[in-house]
């Protein structure tokens, strides 16, 4: 077991990469695999109980649409949490960026793709600015991530209220609404945009050096620093990324709801954290996948939708998800304890 020289040759690691069977076994015993099993069971259950309503194209479309804005935020949260951080500010940053973009587009006045582009730019820049602020406080000033992002959660929302006097802006250009509610090849464009973010998020996290450093910093920040990784800079960029994605999500939200939804995003960060944790990303950092987060976004979405369709009070979804999250974190701890002998 502990041998460095006495392991029988058959058991030794070899130059050959791991076999397909081994990789498959590894993938099937991972948290995302369990969770996708649960998701599949949920989908099958609701489909079986209400085949005409739950599995209808209209309903599935709704589930995907509901999930798409949250998914964009949750991808940023996945990166931050894999690095051992936390970002409570994403919902407020979304609202702030949405307000800023709406104001900018209002100021431009004309309707058209150019106006939407300007709005998008403003949303992304303001989201990035909040992210950089969070990152600066956490990585450079070493204020705890929880407190920093709790603070900017309040500050960003407060500023959004100040700018709007507490009233939602509803002058969203028709072009943006057309994009937000439109389809490309029968699939809602919001879903496609969110899927694009997801795929890019997966590629960068799992295949590039940037992603590898994210895992390393979450797993052992001191070792990463000793290994010459710019840990503070990297951490800062992760919060910036989270803010940037919140800015992007703001545009999706504006396009879908045609209003700045000031009151609509208070629980976004908690829902994003829930999704990330359900997807198997460790609260302690160092482990996680984007695909897990995708599943973690869809489990609550499917549950809520299924309950409504079955006539169960949708509040049950909150109850169930609450306990499931606790279970997921407990399972993660057990897994760690058995591994860290």
């Amino acid at each position, binding site marked *: 077991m502990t041998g460095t020289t006495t392991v029988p040759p058959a058991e030794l690691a070899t130059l050959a990469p791991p076999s397909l069977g081994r990789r498959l076994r590894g993938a099937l015993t991972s948290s995302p695999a369990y969770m996708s099993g649960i998701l599949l069971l949920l989908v099958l259950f609701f489909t079986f109980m209400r085949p005409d309503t739950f599995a209808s194209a209209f309903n599935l479309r709704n589930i995907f649409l509901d999930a798409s804005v949250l998914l964009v935020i949750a991808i940023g949260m996945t990166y931050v949490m894999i690095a051992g951080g936390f970002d409570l500010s994403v919902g407020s940053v979304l609202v702030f960026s949405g307000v800023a973009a709406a104001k900018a587009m209002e100021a431009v006045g004309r309707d058209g793709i150019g106006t939407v582009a300007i709005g998008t730019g403003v949303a992304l820049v303001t989201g990035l600015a909040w992210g950089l602020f969070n990152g600066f406080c956490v990585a450079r000033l070493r204020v705890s991530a929880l407190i920093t992002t709790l603070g900017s959660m309040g500050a960003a929302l407060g500023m959004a209220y100040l700018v709007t006097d507490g009233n939602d802006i509803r002058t969203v250009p028709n072009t943006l609404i057309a994009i937000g509610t439109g389809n490309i090849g029968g699939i809602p464009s919001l879903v496609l945009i969110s899927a694009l973010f997801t795929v890019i998020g997966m590629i960068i996290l799992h295949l590039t050096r940037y992603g590898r450093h994210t895992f390393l910093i979450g797993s052992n920040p001191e070792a990463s620093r*000793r290994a010459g990784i710019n840990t503070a800079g990297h951490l800062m960029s992760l919060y910036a990324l989270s803010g940037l994605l919140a800015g992007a999500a703001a545009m999706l939200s504006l396009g879908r709801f045609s209003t700045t939804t000031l009151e609509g995003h208070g629980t976004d960060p908690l829902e994003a954290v829930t999704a990330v944790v359900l997807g198997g990303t460790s609260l302690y950092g160092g482990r996680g996948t984007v695909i897990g987060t995708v599943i973690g976004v869809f489990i609550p979405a499917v549950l809520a939708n299924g309950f409504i369709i079955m006539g169960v009070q949708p509040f049950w979804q909150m109850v169930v998800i609450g306990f499931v999250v606790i279970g997921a974190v407990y399972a993660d701890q057990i897994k760690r304890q058995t591994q860290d002998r």
Partner: protein
Amino acid sequence: MGNAAENLTHTPDDSAGPILEARGISKSFGHVEALRGADFSARAGEVTALIGDNGAGKSTLVKILSGVYKANAGEIFIRGRKVSFDSPAAAHAAGIETVYQDLSVAQDLSPAANMFMGREKLLPGLLGRLGFLDNAAMRRESLLAFQRLKVSLKDMDTPVASLSGGQRQSVAICRSIMWARSVVFMDEPTAALGVVQTGRTLDLIRRIRDTGIAVVLISHNMRDVIQVADVIEVLRLGRRIARMPNKGVTVQDLVGAMTGALDAETEEGATP
């Protein structure tokens, strides 16, 4: 760096200059003087043991020589050339690696990801310029490095957390050897190990020395030191007080030198 190949065939002899030399290193933390003009030297192809009581300044000295801390005063020479390290990366660039007592591994990642921590290999061509990792090459080179040092890992494709303590340490040691061109510092490599694993680690240290690298062993365990060291340097109260070849030295000699026969009651951090 130009004479790295020459050092591979270097046989230890007293006339050769040290590969790493430090003179008059001082370092204070607030009012605490951890080092007060400490000297140190290590030769290629030798195991130099650095010993001292708690608070003698061993770990501070190692951290300075490996670029983690910056000294308040003093000079560091690599192969006679004066250097100054402002980061661990600068020490890495000079061919200095450290095996930390806590191993400094990322438990959640694979052995190969740990071997190339901070020095990831990228794919050739455009994908590489975009930052895409060459995981296959890193795995292959890691495995070759393990095989060179006769370290057999049971599993190359699992998080380091699921390896045994001895194997985790092997990963940390092999990583240093793979990158070191001049000096490897080993901070208490046997402290957390059982008897059998300690024996294996000492063997590993000898094999590393035989590759022509200077090994610096920091240890509390005098039996280990006497077993494996070629030269022993003793630190006391932030100064080198002895440098002796490991010939007929006893544990009592070392303990006497460490604690100081003359002023045994001086405390850690006391100012002179």
